[in-house]
């Protein structure tokens, strides 16, 4: 069928729009990278776009030699690994049990686990509870409270119920118990969905900073993004001080003017693991949503 003029115009417009979207999505990263690689004082003159004007590595050096950054990266990595393992164990267990239609009390458990995703107590009662449980100022606050995620459980369950039941029945008849069936038959079949859940959990833990804000004062337990948050808030405060100083004529030379550049270096360093691995793992990231959509 021949394309009408309107369709041709639309196709061209659509391509242009997509290119524009790409530019808008990518530009801030490139801009950030350019600022991070540029001399801090020079950046304040403005006009940095996608390449550094005065190339320097000092900003990255400052970040990569900072003990607090490495400590935060360690805390974050440890909590990402532990919380991911815990999430997989609790969610796979719950999801597998949910697929057993004959199991007594099954619907009670499903309701019990589902209700909190619609009603929650809010942060203050949670805060008070954590104080009783000694989770305040403890590394465990990053791992334990988030160990069960209802949404992930539903996605795994949906995936499990798409598997053929004949295999399970056969193994049961051969005398395997439910645990053996789960480990030897079910788990090997659901590697793709486990990869998805694992990636989501790792990214969520890597990006998390609000638990630190709410529950942690100990600077040895800061997460990476919390440190980035502090740098951002500080550089805001410094820029306010500088502007006020310019108006009142106070000498501000003692304030390090490179905070903007260091902040950019911190953002680049802390997001780099995700940005570099994401394009190769995109398939796994996306497929969970598709499974969730099918269920709905």
């Amino acid at each position: 069928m021949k394309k009408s003029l309107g369709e041709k115009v639309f196709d061209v417009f659509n391509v242009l729009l997509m290119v524009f979207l790409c530019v808008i999505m990518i530009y801030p990263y490139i801009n950030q990278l350019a600022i991070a690689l540029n001399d801090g004082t020079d950046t304040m003159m403005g006009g940095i776009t996608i390449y550094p004007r005065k190339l320097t590595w000092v900003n990255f050096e400052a970040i990569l030699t900072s003990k607090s950054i490495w400590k935060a990266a360690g805390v974050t990595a440890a909590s990402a690994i532990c919380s991911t393992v815990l999430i997989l164990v609790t969610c796979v267990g719950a999801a597998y049990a949910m697929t057993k239609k004959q199991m007594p009390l099954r619907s009670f458990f499903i309701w019990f686990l589902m209700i909190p995703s619609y009603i929650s107590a809010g942060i203050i009662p949670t805060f008070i509870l954590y104080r009783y449980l000694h989770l305040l100022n403890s590394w465990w606050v990053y791992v334990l409270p988030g160990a069960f995620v209802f949404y992930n459980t539903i996605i795994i369950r949906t995936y499990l119920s798409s598997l053929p039941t004949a295999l399970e029945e056969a193994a049961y008849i051969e005398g395997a118990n439910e645990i053996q069936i789960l480990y030897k038959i079910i788990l090997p079949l659901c590697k793709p969905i486990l990869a998805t859940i694992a990636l989501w959990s790792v990214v969520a833990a890597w990006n998390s900073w609000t638990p630190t804000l709410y529950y942690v004062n100990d600077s040895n337990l800061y997460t990476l993004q919390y440190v980035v948050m502090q740098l951002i808030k500080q550089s805001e405060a410094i820029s306010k001080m500088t502007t006020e100083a310019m108006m009142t004529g106070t000498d501000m030379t003692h304030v390090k003017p490179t905070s903007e550049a260091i902040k950019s270096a911190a953002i680049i360093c802390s997001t780099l693991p995700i940005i570099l691995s994401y394009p190769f793992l995109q398939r796994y990231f996306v497929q969970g949503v598709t499974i969730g959509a099918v269920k709905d």
Partner: protein
Amino acid sequence: MNNLAKKLDQPTHGTYWKDLGRRFSRYKFMYVLILPAVLCALIFQYLPMGGLIMAFQDYDIIGGIGKSPFTGLANFKEILSMPKFLGAIKNTLVYSSVTIFLGTPFPIALAILFNELKQQKLKKIVQTVSYLPHFISWISVIGMFYAMFSINGTFNDIMAAIFGSGYERKNILCDPDSFLSIIFWSGQWKNIGWNSVVYLAAIAGIDPTMYEAAKVDGCNRLKQVFYITIPSIMPTIVICFIMGMSSLVNSNFEQVYGFQNVYTQEATEVINTLTYRQGILNGDYSMATAFGMMQGVVSFLLVVVSNAVVKKGTGMGIW
């Protein structure tokens, strides 16, 4: 062996209790498997609900819930009389309703445009690029926005190039009046791609013969979008909308707290940020709990009511 399995599997003989016992013993491992999830929900999700009692008390930090005096609805009355809290409620409603009502069509439109794109390679690239910001933490995104919108940043450079030397450079992130647009557009920038995934999956599930039939009937592509694509993905749109309704009284804490600064904080406080500041920073646990509880109850009611309304109107719903 086969007979035994058949006997075990089919609850035909025996009394109800006998059958129940048989099912219990067959699935006893399942209780072990579901136990960690149940414990987690019980301790970290149900147990805090007991703390909601604080909303009706004048909470005493030393005595705890057991020894704090009850004050009835005093906390709620105080909240509804204080401008600080009312302002936060108003801000929350304004930011969220704009995000939900104006924001919903964007990812749907993007999914449709993706679907209409003939260049497969370009489509792959744009999809990959547009999903990426979803996986970057809000605070890093906010850092990038600060660099983009700073006085010497790209945004002001572009505006100066368009409006010439008469343009006065300013940082819109320090202007409380721009906060709504910042929240809206930064939310779109971060999530438009990722939110389109679910619609794209729904579009992929449409039977291609419907389009064939429409073509034969002389529908052009625009008509196909309005008469086939959109009606076919309506169930997905409705479900996403109902789920979104719960956030009408909720804000994204990371986003709002991150964008707030000394210039904008007072005028842009929302329920979530005020609960945090009132409760955790100022230690006014009772008021903050009451405030959070009002939010939680309204948000739950919104899901229930919008689900009921949509179900009555269209027969679709989440339960």
